[in-house]
């Protein structure tokens, strides 16, 4: 079954070009007619997914709405009621269940993240800042002379030329193939996923046509986004490595074991002893692996490493990995902490994650609760993701090795949740339907 590529928002489906400069803008809709007018003005800037290699497409703009945003636009109650509970409640209301407590709790989030006045998100990305500004200018025009819609937050972000995240690791390597999309996954050994895992209106991996928001024109070809802004504690990360490894080579090894890849992106399974920058840069090879045959026990890539948690592939875990695959887009924000600096400089830097999926509970929330916040699924109850998990200074990370496994203790949290939200990214017909609402 083919995806209706001409209706799906480009930004939801296609992997982003790299490197890029980007921006996220959040808007509040005070007047429903103004909100609808904004959609009308922005629609021409939204590309559909059937034009992937359009050389004119120097900037990609995507638009998504929160539940409160749909309400603010005047979407009828019956339609609002048809959205899934997680989306209706919003990320802040579900924070405790998701493990966002203490410093990660909504009370500490950067305003206005998590608040009901977040209605619309616009993201724009471009190969460089100049092109980005060229697209933002008309967007600013569109917003001017539109009282009733207010921009309430902006986050500049980027993926640098070396594709490194704030921790210094090449990120965003792995992407699933999606049936009917014409987009192959990055791992030729991983079977493409049913379109319904990522877009509404198609059969999914659990073998059914999942429920869609009503009316069909609103739900079809839409998807959900879980957006989270993480501050990265890079100095703490480096200090931890320094304190738990004897010398720079050991620090590099420990870091790679925690991440599951070397800084170049070379996966531990294929490069168990040392980094291999050529492999890391080679898109045909850097994701071409599974775990069960080469590394069932995690002697190369620990079961609890970040990359292996985020995508267990054919590892022996509790449950079925395939029904919890997420499409993940991540961008960095803020300047890099200069190499060799171990003292925190007080600068905000981090990652804005966007997780794309048709089922917030089964995908984003499940991965967070079961694969990040705990290790029961790999038989290490109590162990959390070493890089992203809510460790609190007592975290433990096990590195299988012969003859005796290495256990690193005292892990602090290396990221702080600065806030997030659930969005619905409608198809283009749905956006027109929203713009044409008349109530």
């Amino acid at each position, binding site marked *: 079954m083919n995806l209706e590529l001409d209706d799906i928002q480009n930004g939801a489906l296609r992997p982003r070009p790299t490197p890029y400069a980007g921006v996220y803008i959040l808007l509040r809709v005070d007047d429903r007619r103004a909100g609808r007018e904004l959609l009308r003005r922005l629609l021409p800037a939204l590309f559909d997914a059937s034009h992937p290699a359009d050389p004119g497409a120097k900037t990609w703009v995507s638009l998504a709405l929160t539940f409160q945003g749909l309400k603010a636009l005047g979407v009828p109650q019956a339609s609002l009621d048809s959205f899934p509970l997680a989306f209706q409640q919003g990320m802040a209301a579900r924070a405790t269940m998701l493990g966002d407590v203490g410093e990660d709790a909504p009370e500490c989030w950067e305003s206005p993240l998590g608040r009901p006045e977040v209605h619309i998100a616009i993201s724009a990305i471009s190969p460089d800042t100049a092109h980005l500004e060229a697209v933002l200018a008309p967007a600013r025009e569109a917003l001017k002379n539109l009282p009733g819609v207010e921009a309430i937050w902006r986050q500049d972000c980027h993926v640098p030329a070396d594709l490194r995240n704030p921790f210094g690791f090449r990120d965003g390597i792995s992407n699933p193939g999606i049936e009917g999309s014409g987009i192959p996954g990055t791992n030729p050994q991983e079977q493409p996923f049913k379109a319904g895992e990522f877009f509404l209106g198609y059969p999914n991996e659990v*073998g*059914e046509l999942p429920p869609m928001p009503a009316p069909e024109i609103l739900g079809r070809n839409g998807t959900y986004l879980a957006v989270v802004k993480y501050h990265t504690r890079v100095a703490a990360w480096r200090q931890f490595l320094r304190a738990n490894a004897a010398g720079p080579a050991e620090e590099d090894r420990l870091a790679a074991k925690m991440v599951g890849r070397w800084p170049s992106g070379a996966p531990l399974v294929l490069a168990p002893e040392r980094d291999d920058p050529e492999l890391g840069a080679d898109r045909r090879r850097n994701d071409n692996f599974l775990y069960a045959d080469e590394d069932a026990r995690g002697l190369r890539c620990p079961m609890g490493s970040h990359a292996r948690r985020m995508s267990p592939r054919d590892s022996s875990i509790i*449950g079925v990995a395939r029904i919890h695959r997420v499409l993940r887009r991540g961008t960095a924000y803020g300047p890099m902490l200069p190499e060799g600096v171990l003292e925190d400089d007080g600068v905000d830097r981090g990652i804005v994650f966007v997780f794309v999926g048709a089922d917030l509970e089964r995908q984003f929330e499940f991965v967070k609760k079961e694969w990040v916040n705990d290790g029961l699924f790999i*038989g290490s109850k109590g162990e959390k993701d070493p890089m992203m998990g809510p460790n609190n200074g007592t975290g433990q990370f096990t590195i299988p090795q012969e003859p005796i496994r290495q256990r690193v203790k005292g892990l602090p949290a290396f990221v702080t949740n600065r806030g997030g939200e659930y969005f619905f990214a409608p198809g283009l017909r749905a956006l027109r339907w929203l713009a044409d609402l008349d109530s």
Partner: protein
Amino acid sequence: MDSKTSPAENKSFSNTYTLVAKIKPGQADTIRKVAKAGLEGGQWGSGSDVLGILHYQRFFIIEDKYLVFTSEFDGESDDSYLSDFYSMEITPGPSFGIFNSAWKYTEGWPGPGDRDAFIKFWKDNKVEELLTYSYYPGVTAKDVRKAVRLQKAFQSVLDQPGAAEALKHPALKALLAEASD
């Protein structure tokens, strides 16, 4: 009850899940035959065991009227893995076939093929436990399997010539303490 440990510490990490479904009139004996066949066929448990968190699953028939299913499994969020359970069993999974063979004789069972209906049946028929007391709290199914393997390995080590000498090494003190019986 050990007076030194608080009730909170004795709370089991594992969860119990109990479902009670009404048997369709006259079908209790059919269910008994199905259970017997499942046991004799050796299929029971092999599928759901892949889930890895199960301690046991039990079926009871009460007064020929009610089919009771109870299981104990690891984890605190008891609904997180329902999709996984459904997914593993709906494709050629032996256990769901067995669940379906038993439950299709109960009222309201939606059959395979509809995940939401399955989850609704599960939640509608769930009985909240009144009390569970665990005599070895916090032990997962995986811990149990590892402990059994370790015990076998340890016992075979003890039978090796030179074991007593080896266990004198200071690093092995904790093992030496377990060696005498």
